[in-house]
């Protein structure tokens, strides 16, 4: 899999050179777009991150984890996973840190760690994506799509815990 990136760059650059594209000019123009794009994201990112930090710092994240863990256990989700499942929609780096924690604590080949890996890999940071994707739009009615994604992600967690038992 490590070959994908070098191969893509080689293929694109060689093809572009054959087509006589001014590669340096176009590449820098692309980076300029990236700079503009990143700047336009900062206000949304700042607001979302402040909300996430408050949620963590207020202890509500922990309280919610505790409150929901019996329900999680009933659905076959190990209680160690509850926090990962709850944090993932908000924070990619936070959930990655927590995933690493689970792997270190229980061992990479344990059932809990494998479940955690599959859950992490099959979900995304929903709130962050919604902020980035719709940053430029005036009218946004995103409650239904966000709810659909969260429900599906949760059901997938249940499935992941089942699949990891047999595979």
């Amino acid at each position, binding site marked *: 899999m490590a070959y994908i990136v070098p191969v893509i760059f080689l293929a694109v650059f060689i093809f*572009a050179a054959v087509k006589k594209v001014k590669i340096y000019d176009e590449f820098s123009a*692309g*980076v300029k*777009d*990236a700079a503009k794009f990143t700047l336009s*994201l900062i206000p949304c990112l700042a607001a979302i991150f402040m909300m996430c930090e408050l949620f963590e710092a207020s202890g509500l994240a922990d309280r919610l984890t505790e409150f929901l863990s019996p329900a999680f256990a009933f659905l076959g989700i190990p209680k160690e996973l509850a926090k990962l499942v709850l944090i993932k929609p908000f924070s990619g780096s936070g959930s990655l840190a927590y995933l690493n924690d689970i792997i270190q604590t229980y061992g*990479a080949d344990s059932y809990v760690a494998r479940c955690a890996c599959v859950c992490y890999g099959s979900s995304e940071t929903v*709130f962050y994506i919604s902020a980035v994707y*719709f940053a430029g739009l005036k009218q946004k009615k995103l409650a239904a799509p966000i709810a659909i994604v969260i429900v599906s992600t949760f059901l997938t967690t249940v*499935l992941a815990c089942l699949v990891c038992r047999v595979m």
Partner: protein
Amino acid sequence: MNAVFTVIFLVSVAALAISAPQNALGALLSGAEKSLKMAVTLFCIYAVWMGISRVAEKSGLSGAAARGLKPLTRRLFKTENEAANENLAMNLSCNLLGIGGAATPYAVKAIGELEKEKNTFAQKLLFIINATSVQIVPTTVIALRAAAGSAAAADIFLPSLICTAFSTALAAAIFIFGPKKWRT
């Protein structure tokens, strides 16, 4: 988003006011700081991928990829817009290849194009597909497990594939077959 933000913000601040009011400002500032760090990380990713994607675009390569995937994107997203189809095709290809960082700029461009024709259905479907993660190879997770001394780091490949396919299919199905007001 406004409602979600307001509710979580208010409830968290209220809880902090009761338990530890001195931590409120610290949390807000650290959130703002993290957003800038995140922006720096994102700029690095986007600089690499938007640089190369611009080269690919000018050489006609992305146009070719888009033509190949056009029958799929046109039917799935119900749009005839040339530029939107091209960006949609590139977003899907990047996702499937497992280079999620490259997929985001295409998605944002596609959403901008779709806005011109007020195609909210396609915008939301694109969000749902991306937010349920459609990667084929979970590179980050495999690398983490290998680093922790796993005997077979890649053995979660199949469970991951099953789950990621399930989550995307389920979310897309709920969205497409659910009440009409969800799609507008």
